[in-house]
């Protein structure tokens, strides 16, 4: 305290100077329009640069939220498209037409747990019964087939991944339409096997493999992957190795596709089996 008083006594003129100069500069800055503008502009040019950097960083951390909302929007847009144009060949239709039905519904979801290294791989998504999920809905990621929902709780669903040796999917070669049965051999998480393509069919490495829609789970024309390698596996069929389009290790945002007409199709088919 004594030191402080000594200090104040010794430098009293300096302190008075700083106070008075501060008052003067404050008046200068606030009362004069010109000076005020220049100060604000000067400060802003410094802070705006800084703010830009902060904003950049912050938007990077928000990417997760942003992509979630985009994926949600995507799903709702797909739903809308499907409602507006049920099929392409039907160019003219009445808006109140009762024959016209929405065929598929789209819902976005996020993968909360996943595995690729087992023989029977499943993944869990954060939407369940309360969000309208049910079993036998198709799961796609980036427009490519990822799996099928096999069980639902209120808020979560478990989907059987494409990488499950029990998984069977009807798939076809996009270029010529020949279809076969797709399954996984449990070896490499980047490769699935397409069987039952007859040997007279011509196709090449790199041809796209897509879903057929016969199973009433996946809509037709969903990409699965591309032909990586093929060989004659005895009999009359090719065994085609398909490299999957999705990276299942990075599966994150998915769309769940519900087939609204599935019951009808299955019901009808059952009558003849």
């Amino acid at each position: 305290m004594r030191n402080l008083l000594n200090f104040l006594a010794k430098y009293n003129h300096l302190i008075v100077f700083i106070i008075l100069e501060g008052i003067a500069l404050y008046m200068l800055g606030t009362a004069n329009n010109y000076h005020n503008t220049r100060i604000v502009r000067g400060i802003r040019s410094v802070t705006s640069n800084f703010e830009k950097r902060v904003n950049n960083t912050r938007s990077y951390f928000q990417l997760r939220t942003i992509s979630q909302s985009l994926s949600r929007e995507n799903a709702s847009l797909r739903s809308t498209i499907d409602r507006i144009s049920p099929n392409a060949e039907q160019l003219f239709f009445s808006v109140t037409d009762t024959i016209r039905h929405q065929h598929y519904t789209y819902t976005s979801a996020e993968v909360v747990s996943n595995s690729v290294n087992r023989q029977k791989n499943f993944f869990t998504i954060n939407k369940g019964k309360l969000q309208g999920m049910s079993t036998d809905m198709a799961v796609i990621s980036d427009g490519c087939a990822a799996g099928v929902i096999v069980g639902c709780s209120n808020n979560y669903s478990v989907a059987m991944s494409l990488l499950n040796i029990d998984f069977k999917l009807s798939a076809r070669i996009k270029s010529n339409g020949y279809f076969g049965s797709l399954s996984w051999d449990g070896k490499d998480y980047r490769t699935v096997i397409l069987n039952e393509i007859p040997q007279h069919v011509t196709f090449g490495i790199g041809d796209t493999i897509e879903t057929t829609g016969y199973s009433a789970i996946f809509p037709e024309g969903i990409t699965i992957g591309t032909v990586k390698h093929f060989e004659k596996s005895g009999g009359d069929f090719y065994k085609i190795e398909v490299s999957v389009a999705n990276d299942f290790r990075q599966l994150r945002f998915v769309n769940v596709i519900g087939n609204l007409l599935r019951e009808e199709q299955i019901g009808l088919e059952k009558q003849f089996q």
Partner: protein
Amino acid sequence: MINRILRIGLIFILLILLQVLLFNNIQFSGYVNPYIYIMFILLLPFEIPAWLLLIISFLTGFTIDVISGTPGMHSAATVVAGFVRPIVLRVISPREGYELSPNPSMFIYGFRWFLIYASIIVFIHHTTLFYLEVFRLADFFRTILRVILSTAFSVTFIVLLEYIRKGK
């Protein structure tokens, strides 16, 4: 004592009036704006305490600010001048010190001493004032030219006023 304070007050009023009524209206070609009211800071007695000098400086500048409608500008410059005055006095003190007269005076301490004393303080005052006025460094050399020319004119007028003050 009372007499001296009255005298100082009279100088103050005269200088302010001179500045506001006459010198504020002088403007040669935009480069010369003499500010002679700073002479009041020059003429204050030697033994005045530093804090009182600063407060008087502030009030002087503030008076000019109020009259010429430039809040803060002259106050800031004059406070700087008041702050450097004791330092300048210490640096340029004559060999025999400031014993001869309690007030800085050209006729007691010599023309040369007074010229240096006035020039330094007026230059510092004008530098602060003009740079605060333009408030940017873009026209740096143009402003420094204004400072130098205005300082020359102000010092000339201050010396003339000092002659008039003595002649009276």
